[in-house]
């Protein structure tokens, strides 16, 4: 295959202002992080609430959480994003719709859609992790807390959740990394995050393989660093004797 490799392409001018292609990648990485972090906060909060809801001894409450999980887990992420971006704004009242579509900066409206979409999608997955974390604890924990006179909220807050979170740090890490990778769907609604900038670089420079190689390296490095960070967190919060860390 006769391909012209040119690794210097990233330092070339894009022809837009005085930006180089590398500037585009940096801007894109910024958006990727901005999407993933906010979406993760939504996912962690909502997912925890839903996870607790799934385990409480009340059929209606746990039923609502189950429906949520099945709905958000079984519809493809991209379909959900298009619903949030194209459909939901059209359901708003007319004046709010005009404001959202015309006055709001299109990058902001795209960002809102993708953060909400990714946050709610990931919340369904976090919910399942939290639920399994709670259910993995010996039943005696809950009974003992009850016997000591704890109310239900106190049982969750003081006894179950602190232990459950420690157990599920490894699968939560996976979800955390998934948010960063899934944020690439934003490129399909015109938000110039890392993948969108990569595609743009590939298209403008015609150096497709270099463009995607750099994106691969950036995603990989970012996720490896996050994984190491989460491992440190796991070690830091471990309670000696409760669960073993790193196979000890």
């Amino acid at each position, binding site marked *: 295959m006769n*391909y*012209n490799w040119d690794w210097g392409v990233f330092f070339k001018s894009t022809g837009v202002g005085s930006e180089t292609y590398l500037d585009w990648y940096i801007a894109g990485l910024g958006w990727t992080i901005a999407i993933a972090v906010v979406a993760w906060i939504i996912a962690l909060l909502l997912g925890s609430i839903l996870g607790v809801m799934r385990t409480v001894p009340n059929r209606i409450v746990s039923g609502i959480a189950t429906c949520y999980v099945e709905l958000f887990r079984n519809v493809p992420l991209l379909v959900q994003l298009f619903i949030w971006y194209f459909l939901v704004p059209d359901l708003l009242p007319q004046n709010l719709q005009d404001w959202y579509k015309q006055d709001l900066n*299109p*990058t902001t409206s795209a960002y809102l859609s993708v953060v909400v979409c990714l946050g709610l999608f990931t919340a369904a997955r976090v919910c399942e992790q939290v639920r399994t974390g709670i259910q993995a604890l010996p039943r005696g924990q809950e009974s003992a807390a009850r016997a000591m006179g704890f109310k239900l909220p106190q049982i969750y807050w003081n006894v179950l959740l602190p232990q459950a979170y420690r157990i599920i740090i490894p699968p939560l890490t996976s979800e955390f990394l998934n948010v960063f990778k899934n944020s690439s769907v934003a490129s399909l609604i015109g938000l110039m995050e890392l993948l969108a900038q990569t595609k*743009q670089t590939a*298209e403008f420079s015609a150096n497709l393989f270099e463009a995607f190689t750099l994106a691969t390296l950036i995603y990989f490095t970012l996720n490896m660093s996050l994984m190491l960070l989460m491992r440190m967190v796991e070690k830091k919060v471990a309670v000696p004797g409760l669960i073993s860390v790193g196979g000890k």
Partner: protein
Amino acid sequence: MRIVPHILGAAIAAALISTPVFAAELTGTLKKINDSGTITLAHRDSSIPFSYIADASGKPVGYSHDIQVAIVEALKKDLNKPDLQVKYNLVTSQTRIPLIQNGTADIECGSTTNNTERAQQVDFTVNIFEIGTRLLVKKDKDGKPSYADFADLKGKNVVTTAGTTSERIIKAMNADKQMGMNIISAKDHGESFNMLESGRAVAFMMDDALLAGEEAKAKKPADWIITGTPQSFEAYACMVRKDDPAFKKAVDDAIVALYKSGEINKIYSKWFESPIPPKGLNLNFPMSDKVKDLIATPSDKPAPDVKI
């Protein structure tokens, strides 16, 4: 002293004329096509009316595709292979260059701009079309464009398709002239038009011929109008693998033959001035002087940069 090149030129010309077509050993793509008995055509799925899929058969149609078919017919004659098989390979703007380079497809005719960056990776045939980058906007009550030209778009939302030259031009314009436009990069032309139709953007910047295609697809085509001073002129050409002069020459000759015979005019009016599938809409897009020039004097160079 000037006479030597002339003699040399005449000698080469004489040699070329007297040589029967491809009597010499075949190389590169021609050899591949000859040996395998098949040629793979790369096409697009929604570059209306250049190369797009109009029905359930999944086969492409369009202006560029008709040129591609004419090229195949010429190759059949050149190689003396009347039963040459044709395979189709759908490409996107991201896959079209690598799939030509790695041999998956032999020739791509769609709406690919002939530019110097791409010419590092592939060779372009002679140009087959020329567009200007303009705007599609809504008509106002009097039937005039609601935004007449680029200067009227200060501080407005403008949509363009990601990865196109229009995107580069409008971003540069926004930076250079500090126009404060919000530029949306949609993933394809259909989605760009969707943004315009739904009111998220007031103007859609793109190649004028593609704008005509989107306009024809609209729910109410009469609501929309193409306007604005062209910000650049771009030539479309077919892509072939780099450094394969024999194949490129065969393809170029086939295209030039279409131009010489006037056959190109029929193809043009079939796609730009008559009802086209799938909805039977007429783009009413008469041939521009730029396209007439390109047919009169075929060239495989990018369109000259026009600064406005």
